[in-house]
């Protein structure tokens, strides 16, 4: 938890820049700018009226599944083995991509649902439902499923052959 909390400010900057790049790539014209402020990611659009309040996304709400994944990797018997550390690093890299996706759908759900008349004018009912559901899914269960799934997929484990030819997996923490 200390690693997550201590590394969050720098991590949030990388997260905001990556999400901004994808958002701007998908916009015509590109108008979204993201900046970090304390532990929030603030959404700036060049077409927002000056002086209007800027929506913010609490970054820790989107990224704290890192604690869950790290704990699961650390709970194995060979915490500092090369395979475990390599698995953790790869999982962390993939988890970063899910954080970028989580931030993008959260910002899109803000655009689609929370900007009043502007949202209604620019997003149809299908788009509003899709972005709203995607952000809700990520926040309610998706972020946990990604963390647990990455641990399950990339944790160390070996397969041993049973005497009669049947095989069973010998795991560090669980069978798969």
């Amino acid at each position, binding site marked *: *938890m200390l690693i997550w909390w201590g590394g969050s400010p720098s991590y949030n900057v990388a997260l905001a820049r990556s999400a901004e790049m994808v958002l701007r790539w998908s916009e015509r014209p590109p108008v979204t700018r993201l900046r970090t402020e304390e532990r929030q990611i603030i959404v700036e659009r060049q077409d927002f009226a000056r002086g209007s309040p800027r929506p913010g996304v609490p970054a820790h709400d989107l990224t704290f599944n890192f604690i869950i994944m790290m704990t699961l990797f650390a709970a194995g018997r060979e915490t500092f083995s090369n395979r475990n550390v390599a698995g953790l690093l790869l999982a962390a890299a993939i988890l970063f991509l899910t954080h970028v996706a989580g931030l993008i759908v959260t910002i899109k759900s803000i655009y689609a649902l929370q900007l009043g008349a502007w949202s209604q004018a620019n997003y149809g009912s299908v788009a509003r439902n899709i972005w709203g559901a995607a952000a809700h899914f990520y926040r309610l269960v998706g972020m946990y*499923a990604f963390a*647990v*799934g990455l641990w399950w997929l990339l944790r160390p484990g070996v397969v*041993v052959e049973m005497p009669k030819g049947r095989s069973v997996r010998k795991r560090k923490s669980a069978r798969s």
Partner: protein
Amino acid sequence: MSIARGGDERLKRDRALFLVRFIGIVVGLYILIALNPVNDHVIVPFTRFITVIAGWMLGAAGQQVSVNGTIIGSPTFAVNVENGCNGIEAVILLIAAVAAFPARWIDRILGIILGFLAVQIVNTFRVAMLFWLGAHHPTVFQLFHVAVWQSLIILFSVGLFVLWSWKFAAPKALATSR
């Protein structure tokens, strides 16, 4: 016993298969609970039930609280128990993991029922403790609400699955296949 040739490939394939099933079931269960009739007639009444039990626990611990729907309140503090606080997300993960794991159906059903009860007991304690923290130590409420208890409840759910798969489901499945 000897290390199996090609075992790593099989392990990767098994894990990938589990992951596909797991994510698929998570998405399916999410869609189910997101449906308005399910939300209105199952999730909300269940959340009210959790709120009542948590309120009762706080009352038994000497706290002056009142419960109204999904809100627990006192003269100085109130919390609204919503989706994400009712333990359903942890139960969804547990059900998806148990259902995706190769095991006998009876073991799966047993794992889901016992796991559901265990998660909900811990979650009710979590709701009561979060209210107590908010009322008496508001500065740390947000940290515990978002990061600490959310992580603990998910890790508890994963821990239950690992225990189930390790101690109960896999040995029996293996024994039956011999």
